[in-house]
């Protein structure tokens, strides 16, 4: 377990960027750029080990208790 101050937050990890060159609706684009569920409880989010290996990781964390349940590598798909 590494100290939190080595990391920088990157927001909601469940947001998927639309593929390049794909025709998408305004709604889909807004959902990607702006709209966030930001729920109380389990939240899948991105953190970068900025003062470390500079890897982005996905973290499943509780937004009410700050408990961390699980971490995933950047390219790991989270079910």
């Amino acid at each position, binding site marked *: 377990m590494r100290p939190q101050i080595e990391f920088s937050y990157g*927001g909601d990890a469940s947001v998927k960027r639309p593929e390049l060159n794909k025709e998408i609706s305004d709604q889909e684009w807004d*959902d990607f*750029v702006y*709209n*966030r569920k930001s*729920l*109380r409880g389990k939240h899948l989010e991105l953190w970068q080990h900025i003062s470390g290996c500079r890897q982005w990781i996905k973290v499943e964390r509780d937004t*009410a208790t*700050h408990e961390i349940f699980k971490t995933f590598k950047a390219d790991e798909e989270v079910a």
Partner: protein
Amino acid sequence: MQKYSIFNLVKNAFSNHQNWDLAWKDPEPKEEYDVVIIGGGGHGLATAYYLAKEHNITKVAIIEKGWIGGGNVGRNTTIIRSNYMHDENGLFSEFGMDLWRKMSQDLNYNVMFSPRGIINLAHSDAQMNAYARRGNSMRLNGIDAVLLNREEVKEIIPMADFSENVRFPIFGGLMQPSAGTARHDAVAWGYARQADDMGVDIIQNCEVIGFDVSAGKINGIRTSRGNIKAKKVGLCVAGSTNILAEKLNMTLPIETHLLQACVSEPVKPVLDSVVTFGAGHFYISQSDKGEMVMGGDLDGYNSYAQRGNLPTLQHVLTEGIAMMPFLSKLKMLRTWGGIMDMSMDGSPIIDKTHIDGLYLNCGWCYGGFKATPASGWTFAHTIAQDRVHELNAGYSLNRFNTGHLIDEKGLGTKTWIS
């Protein structure tokens, strides 16, 4: 209703203060209301008050999950200002300043609005220029603003660091002399007392568990104390907006974040103005009790915990000492956290929604407390008239779709970078 005054205070003293009325009642929810406001915070209470006062709508209930005033109106740093660059924010806030100035008399409740002035310190010419852009915009909008040079700042806050041993020297600052502070709890209680007097039901300990929507129209809400029918429902729950939005199947341009603040032990008055540090995120004022009220950065990740961590406060206080080294010898007495609706351009949303009869008031970021009266006033107007007022026309929900963003800081969607 009993009028609060020095005469009544003296009169009651002789009956040992046994005859004061309830400031507000504690009614059972009725079956149906014209308007239900969800959220008994400052904005919700103010909305109910202005619905009754300005629009004669009194069949109103305020539904509060806990106790009124327990959200951000009770956990902020009490700063009131209208020093915004963008017209939408400036004109809206300045309208609010007028309401603040007469609030104690209007509510017959001393909210202790105290225009002690706010100074934003600048630490470079570039920053002076950015402040000039903001200050000139304020002046052209009819809002007071003064650009101070280093010496003028020194006269007002001589205890700031004007020494050689300073990382970011003070170049000057932008001051809004008419900005100030108010007693936060009193604002909630004052609105509650008057709203109650005009017939609004304040229903505490009542949690919203769902909404009754059919054919694109709201019919009422489901609560822990039963179903309540309503022609119109206003959502006024900054900090919990995302939780209720989910129940409505709405996803909003809002993230929920934690902002901490702290106070020092009380000391004799040394600081009259509200001061913000320009080379970081720190602000300070001294309360009437003598406590230094301090705040700064978000904790920097989505959170609903009204508790933060020490590294953030350490960071904030480091900037505090960089600005005013004498703070080092004071002691931190109390810390707390508030849950912020961080909108994606840093400005709020007061608008109608795609559901008929459902209205949205959210996204206040750090700026909710000062907006209390203007937010309540414009939201009441929006609900009563079913259309936005020109003051909140810019605070539309679809601005993210059209690109009419109101971004004071230019940080875009990364709300956690404060």
